């Protein structure tokens, strides 16, 4: 039992530590696809280190909510990392919080960042907050519906159990999960401020969503926000793996060998997933902001459709 707890804790810490690497990998793949050399996979770490060393510049009108918010962001994402299995299904807090609570954690982070964006009272800050909430109010129910579909199949809302159950059903394709999978990818792109909803590398304020919210942040606060954004993307990737590619995760009953194998398998999946994400982002163009609700409504409808398919066809 205690070894499992240690492995679980190691899993969460590992997720926190390698999350920037995942972003670095995606950026590197994108650079390759766009015929650029790229800054290397370790660039996110360098950025975070640079930011941590700087003096924080805070606007005069900022309240303490503004300064608390980055820590809440990071805490929430670390919490999520402790709920989601990375390479073994023994996530340390997987029992204390299930998939619905996971959606709640993401919502908590979103609400705090949006409030912090409104705190200083700049035009771009509140614009970003409004847009973020617009994306959120459609993406969150879609994510919830994806989780509900997976929960109905596995008869549990606990993510480790879902991954365990789905991992043991070898090579059965559920039509409902196919719908849910497409919806999930769409939610992943929208929630992590990726193309086609938002452009993480944009410098044009009027098109920003996530970046507009954090314009006023600097130094350690910005470092934490960058890191938690990276961790959020990593968390979504591991959720995707747990739900749709659970094969190879170390199960509840597996021994040391399974565990030893699980780590490289998980790494391989993340590498492929990151490359695929980079490909999707390179091939698509950013949508106008008011096309975003249509995109997300499609995701929501697909997720509901998945649930209906499961309930009506029983598969």
């Amino acid at each position, binding site marked *: 039992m205690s070894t499992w707890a240690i492995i679980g804790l190691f899993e969460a810490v590992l997720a926190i530590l390698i999350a920037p690497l995942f972003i670095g990998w995606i950026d590197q793949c994108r650079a390759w696809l766009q015929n650029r050399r790229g800054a290397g996979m370790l660039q996110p770490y360098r950025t975070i280190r640079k930011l*941590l060393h700087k*003096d924080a*510049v*805070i*606007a*005069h*009108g900022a*309240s303490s*909510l503004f300064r608390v918010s980055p*820590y*809440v962001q*990071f*805490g*929430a994402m670390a*919490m999520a990392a*402790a709920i989601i299995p990375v390479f073994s299904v023994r996530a340390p*807090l997987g*029992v*204390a*919080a*299930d998939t*619905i*609570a996971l959606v*709640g954690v993401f*919502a*908590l982070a*979103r*609400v705090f960042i*949006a*409030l912090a964006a*409104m*705190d*200083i*009272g*700049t*035009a771009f*800050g*509140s614009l970003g*907050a*409004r847009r973020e*909430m*617009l994306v959120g109010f459609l993406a*969150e*129910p879609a994510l919830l*519906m994806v989780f*509900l579909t997976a929960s109905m199949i596995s*008869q549990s*809302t*606990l993510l480790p*159990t879902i991954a365990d159950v789905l991992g043991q059903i070898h090579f059965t394709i559920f039509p409902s999960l196919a719908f849910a999978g497409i919806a999930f990818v769409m939610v992943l792109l929208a929630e992590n401020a990726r193309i086609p909803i938002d452009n993480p590398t944009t410098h044009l304020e009027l098109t920003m969503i996530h970046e507009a919210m954090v314009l*006023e942040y600097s130094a*350690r606060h910005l*470092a934490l926000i960058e890191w938690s954004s990276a961790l959020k993307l990593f968390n979504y990737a591991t959720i995707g793996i747990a739900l749709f590619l659970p094969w190879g995760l170390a199960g509840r009953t597996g021994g040391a060998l399974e565990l030893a194998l699980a780590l490289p398998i998980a790494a391989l999946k993340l590498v492929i997933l990151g490359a695929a994400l980079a490909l999707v982002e390179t091939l698509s163009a950013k949508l106008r902001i008011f096309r975003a*609700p249509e995109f997300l*409504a499609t995701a929501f409808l697909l997720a*509901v459709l998945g*649930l209906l398919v499961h*309930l*009506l066809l*029983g598969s």
Partner: protein
Amino acid sequence: MALTPLSLVLGVAIAWLAIGAAGLLRPHDIRFAGRALFGLGAVAALLLLAAGIWSLGQPVQAWVLPLGLPDLPLHVRLDPLASFFLALIGATAAGISVYSAGYFRAGEGALPGLLCLQYHVFLASMTMVVLADDAYTFMVAWETMALASYFLVTTQHRVPEIRKAGFLYLLLAHVGAIGILLCFGVLQGGSWQFTFDAMRAATLPPTWASIAFGLALFGFGAKAGLVPLHVWLPEAHPAAPSPVSALMSGVMLKTAIYGIVRVSFDLLHTPLWWWGAVALALGAFTAVFGAVFAAVQTDMKRLLAYSSIENIGVIVTGLGLAMLFRGLKMNALAALSLSAALYHCINHAQFKSLLFLCTGSVLHATGQRNLGKLGGLIHRMPWVAWLALVGTLAMAGLPPLNGFVSEWLLLQAYLFTPGLPHTIVNMLVPLGAAAFALTVALSAYVMVKFYGVIFLGRAREAILTQAHDAGWLERIGLAWLALGCVALGMAPVAVLDALDTINRSLIGTGIGAQTQNWWLLTPVDAQRASYSPLVFAAGMAIAIAITYLVVRRLYHGRVRRSDPWDCGFPAQTPRMQDTAEGFGQPIRHVFGPFFRIERELPTPFDKEPRYALRLGDRWWDWLYLPIARSVQETARVVGYLQQGRIALYLFYSFATLLTLLAFAL
């Protein structure tokens, strides 16, 4: 007389009436009627809370009081359901009364003494509604409640809009009361006995039972604010003083929920499954409707009123699920759904009262209800702002606060729906879950707007920089309700244990399974779902603390203050922040067909360009205005008879006489 829960509850009701009457002794004295008596009222409310909790585990107690008309004594009964709602009234009213003691000022609308009387009669009547065990007592208490709240809504009766809002409220309250009265008429089932015992004993054929349920849903729905009977809420809540809004939204709406539960689970024994489907559909629609409208409001109390409609919708979907499962004999799931709905009742009572009281403090400090003229109050009113943040997060359904727990439970109820025997229900349940998920996400949107526009950013008006924080009595009231939000979020196992006594008395089965672990909530079984707010909160706190320490110790805590960056734009004014209209604009865009939108657009040649946007509720066009027009038309036609000439009236009499004679022959 021995001290039993029932005698304690009756004592509290009498005490409230006495406190109210005492207010008339010195009606002009704000210190006596506005401060001391409201403080006493809060103590009584705490006693009611204690009595409610005490009696949850006690056997049912019923009394016949030697009061009322000859041969019509008052019947009262205290069962677990009533105890729960009494505890809800007590817990919420305690906070609101303490707050009110610091809130009411002399010279605002009605006299303090009169206000004290109306307020405490209102509280006592709500207690009696829950206690009542026969239709007469119930209706008398119900109507007293409606009248007392009407007078409270129209406290500032010199303002024409407030009088109008009060009248609308009174009208819909009475239309609803007719429904309830007719419902009791059906429920007695030919025995002509109007005690609830007789109604429980009567066996109604399914058609009549369905009619009774429909009437109850209509009657109580008018009070609760189910669409399309919701129109009074957004008018009455902004009109009423904030503690009254808090009481009406937090507590009075719940008495309507109590009524629905009492009629459909207790008086009608077992609901039919399709009632549940109807309630589920109606509740889901109400919830989405309320959330969408809340997102586009510009008046802070109107926003909260629409959000109350949303929450009532959520509660009714829970009740609908419970009826559905109960009708299909899935008692464990019915128990889970009913618990989720009742849990949401008390959660909503706490956070909505808290938020309404916060708007009261903001209103007193700034004189503004319009979100477009507020902003930046976190600097001037830190107490109110931070306590409001608790309510905001709770209402947005975020863990580990209380709003999340009931949301979680309700989703569990949706989730573990095994193959239901009817295809239409099989379709309806996931659609209900989708609507519910959308509602929860929208309520987060609404709450970010509410909190961000009022408390964050920069002051939009110069006068806001003189705003003052709430007084200490107000702070205690707010803190009590915020504490309730936290406690209900942290101790779900204890609350569910208490709610299980209701399940056992109404449905026959409890959820049961969650008693194994005091810290881990496992409503179905541990393999299926579990949630532990304590571990969750501890995990978050530890993660945040470690991050804070690592970042601050390893690097440095240096901070420089400067002007906001905002991409280098130098001429920033507070007017450039998003207004409430701006923040609601995406919702207006996405949910366009929900609204009746009137725009007034300036042309390029206007000397003084003016832009105006008015959002209307289409139900006025669809339902209320046609009814009003047809009533007027009928009145006009009938008016032809009334020509005011004596000869004509004599002719009417003559014609009537002739007709009667013709029949007589």
